């Protein structure tokens, strides 16, 4: 299983508390995690990445293991600690706005 922590607004939208746990078939990458997340919680489609291009929304970042993975290729493997559930995959909203 993969641990995913969403921003508060998306936890409210998905009606979940705390972390989400996802089973991923095949390689664990940003793309496969987000595919599984959107399959489990369809209301999140379009809120993290664009419906069509699948580009990350500009005010969101992906962190794991104290690293910013936002600009890594979407099919790059996630860190081993994410695969072993030692660390979560974090979807972070920018601290900005009023």
């Amino acid at each position: 299983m993969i641990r995913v922590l969403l921003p508060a607004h998306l936890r409210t939208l998905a009606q979940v508390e705390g972390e989400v746990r996802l089973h991923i078939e095949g390689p664990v990458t940003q793309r496969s995690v987000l595919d599984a997340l959107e399959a489990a919680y369809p209301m999140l489609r379009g809120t993290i990445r664009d419906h069509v291009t699948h580009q990350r929304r500009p005010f969101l970042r992906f962190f794991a293991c104290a690293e910013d993975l936002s600009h890594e290729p979407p099919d790059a493997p996630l860190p081993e600690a994410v695969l072993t559930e030692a660390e979560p995959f974090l979807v972070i909203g920018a601290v900005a706005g009023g």
Partner: protein
Amino acid sequence: MSKVRLLVGTRKGAFVLTSDGKREQWNVSGPFFGGWEIYHMKGSPVDPSRIYASQSTGWFGQLIQRSDDGGKTWQPVDNKFVYEGNAGTHQWYDGTPHPWEFKRVWHLEPSLSDPDTVYAGVEDAALFQSKDGGKSWQELAGLRGHGSGPHWQPGGGGMCLHTILLDPENPDRIFIAISSAGAFRTDNGGATWQPINRGLKSAHIPDNTAEVGHCVHHIAMHRSRPEVLFMQKHWDVMRSDDAGDSWQEVSGNLPTDFGFAIDVHAHQPETIYVVPIKSDSEHYPPDAKLRVYRSRTGGNDWEPLTKGLPQSDCYVNVLRDAMAVDALDSCGIYFGTTGGQVYASSDAGDNWAPIVRDLPAVLSIEVQTLS
């Protein structure tokens, strides 16, 4: 006993305000979707329990919410707005081509005959339709396909399709308005469109009377006379008696003819309301006095309505979708401000009182008159 329900969209969530027919005591529920911008909410005229809401933020994009119980509970429906075909470009602020990009839904207009059919006016300007209660959306691409689309350009608030008027006598006729392209009409259910801007004059475009390029802020109609339209343009209050084929200015004695909101009395089709705003840059009431202006003659002759409204030190704005009227015998008028006040008049504007004073900035108000 009649009941009134106000659907208030704000910068930080949605609120539902309810009262009985006396409109003296109000119950405020919300915020729904706290922290999100609610550009617009509107109920189906066929099934008033069915309400659609446009929910968005810069972080997470666009959501559409649907309520089937009058706003008590909500379910997210489809939020996929994809332009048909090759979206192409429109003009950017500097006149260069800019790709058409979906940003948000400004206005939702439920069908007059089917609660599952609803129209969405979006930025960058386009019209979408859902026929399944918001579960999927399709662009009515004939609008952008009119041919003038590559020449449309954004207004200060973006290139938004903000006004959708459905003709109650002709289901194939729809009016829309875009900032700052102008007004358009279809007579065949959205397949093809024509600009309806003859008579508009706008100093901010090279050809002041061009076919497109006018910054129309809002349009209103009375359902008994769908061929008569009233427009608040960036500057100028306008009137058309031929379904938009031609327009005449009716600004008359207004202290300023800039503004955003315009609406029509529920039972007197020649009685119209605007809120004059100082511009081009201030966007607050002239003389710091919040005054609704009423014309009982369809324009030109205007009277200020001030009783109960702040007449000093007032620096709020009233946005284009933030005024609405109820259908009770003594027509109620409502508007919301960027300062978070929602004002109500239960006597067609003679007297006003705030329902709430401290909401987030109000983006939109719609009224449901319930029996």
